């Protein structure tokens, strides 16, 4: 992982503002087209994330919420993959390399946002999720969904600018927003930020996610490995010699007694 090396200034992300979203589905259609994904549902509001759908718009009363990969700053998927098939790129997208993948599905189990989807219908399935239009970002363009959005509900930009913009919106209209930027701290922060008029659990976002970065939970155990190895090795070797010697002495004493 290259979190320490990560230059936040260069990171590109998305700001989704549920108070602005009109539920038109332009982002959903644009995503399907950009990634050459087949149609999966006549009513996009009833569709759900799958190996053929990387983003959805969900309806909660009169509020619409987008679901997609959050592109965490310290992604759980990157840290858990045994073969390093996931990568956090310099531009921001978290990308997956199917040629490396062995198909253990630990990424799906570990993702705090439960985003990665699997090609269950295939005999050699891969993991599928939003790639934050990495190819477009490399060309200096914004993501397809942000480009398609007719209002200011999905905005693409540099992460520090997005954070400033989110704070500005909340500060200017405190009555309109629930005072929290989802994704700013969740799971150690992500490149996708979300604003909502209501508490986030009402829009189907998990509010149980800790603020700590997810790989930290594993590192607490992993960092003890060198200690276990060295202390265990010394202890066991010591016991080996000690008990061997003890048995030897016992045997000698036994023999001596016999001799006497």
């Amino acid at each position, binding site marked *: 992982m290259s979190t320490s090396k990560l230059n936040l200034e260069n990171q590109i992300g998305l700001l989704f503002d549920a108070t602005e979203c009109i539920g038109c589905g332009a982002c959903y259609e644009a995503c399907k087209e950009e990634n050459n994904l087949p149609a999966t549902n006549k009513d996009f509001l009833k569709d759900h994330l799958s190996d053929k759908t990387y983003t959805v718009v969900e309806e909660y009363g009169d509020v619409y919420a987008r679901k997609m990969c959050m592109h965490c700053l310290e992604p759980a998927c990157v840290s858990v993959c045994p073969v390093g098939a996931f990568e956090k790129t310099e531009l921001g997208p978290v990308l997956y390399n199917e040629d490396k993948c062995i198909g253990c599905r630990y990424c799906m189990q570990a993702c705090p946002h439960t985003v990665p989807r699997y090609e269950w219908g295939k005999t050699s*399935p891969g993991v599928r999720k939003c790639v934050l239009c990495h190819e477009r970002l490399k060309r200096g363009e914004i993501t397809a969904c942000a480009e398609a959005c007719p209002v200011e509900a999905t905005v693409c930009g540099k992460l520090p600018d997005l954070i400033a913009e989110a704070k500005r919106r909340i500060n200017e209209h405190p009555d309109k927003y629930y005072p929290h930027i989802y994704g700013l701290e969740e799971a150690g922060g992500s490149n996708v930020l979300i604003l909502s008029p209501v508490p986030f659990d009402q829009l189907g976002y998990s509010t149980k996610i800790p603020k700590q970065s997810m790989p930290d939970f594993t590192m607490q155990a992993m960092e003890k490995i060198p200690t276990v190895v060295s202390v265990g090795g010394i202890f066991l070797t010591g016991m080996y010699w000690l008990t061997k010697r003890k048995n030897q002495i016992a045997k000698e004493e036994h023999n001596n007694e016999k001799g006497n």
Partner: protein
Amino acid sequence: MKKEINMLNDTPVKSEKKFYIKNPFKGPMTFWKGVSFIIVIIGLYSLYIRFTKGLGASTNLSDFVPWGLWIGIDFIGVGLAAAGFTIAATAHIFHNHKYESITRPAILSAYIGYMMVVALLIIDLGKPEHFYHPVYMWNIHSVMFEITWCVICYSTILTIEFAPVVLEKYKFNKLLKIVKKITPAAVIMGVIFSTLHQSSFGSLYLIAPAKVYPLWYSSFLPVHFFISCIAAGLSMIILSSYLCARAFNQGLNIRILSGLGKGALTVLIIELVFKFSEFFSTGKTSLLFTHASETYFFWLEIILGFVIPIWILTHPKYKVNRTGLYFASIFTISGFILNRMNVCVTSLVRSSGESYVPSFEEVGITLFLILAAVYVFKVVVENFRVFPEEESVIEVEPQPVEQSDGLIFNK
């Protein structure tokens, strides 16, 4: 001169160089033979579906339940194989010679257990054709990567630990000498690798604090996994000694078994106290009495796997009685199996919002692999000196030299 007599008749004799496998189609059809044939047919069919139609068609796994029965069986298989390193350490590192006679069966069952788990892991992979990738594609931050390497290393060590059994049969005396020389070092490394990956199976879930139900989530999950596998491993040795005594006409050494029972009891008490003191210190006590299905599964695990075996193993009569020890081990193992299934299935149902019941193929392949493991164990025991010689030879009645193959079959 029993050996010489045995050399002359046709029954499989372990000191002979010949490798002997009984034809399963010969001989009378028994109940267990019939069950085995059915399991083999179901298993082969399930494997065919798994590899031709894919994981989606052959399992009930989904985007919300990416791990199911197979991962649970991997946990259980590796946990029950813990006897391999525990007994090897007791006999070879702590030089407790009382347990010398059970090291070979313990190591053999661990060896076969690991082979079964590796086979199942590969079947479970979405891209089994890439199974060798962790060998040269490294991600040292991944628990799964660490487990993979520990399993590879420990399997190698089990090979070294079990090698003498094969080498002595085929009289490779030079190689045998070398292997015996490196055995102590191998056993020490084996204990370390086992400690690491037994606990790491628990570490797998550390990264999902928001998903795992709090009754099972703990930052000490790896410690819980490690402690509980020792009790389960010791119980597995008691159980398999009991079953082997019946199947192979071995004598049962009650002194050894009650020693193992005492070990299991100590570990069970430590784990139980540790578990509950953690609940009290983290303020999860109220969850123990919440009206929820997780609560019932949790208490079932505690009663089956702790309360009953602890009662039996502290009972003055049952703790030194073969039936008592047999039941104590069965309860400990059941509680252990339930614990692992609870961690990998029950604890995640609520957060995933989807329930999971394994498919026909998942169950079929699992049963098939368990049957294969038992069969391999049987064949190896019949051909190699796994159990101590005095006991096994005494049981074999020296037969008259003239007796032919046909006559033996007529018996």
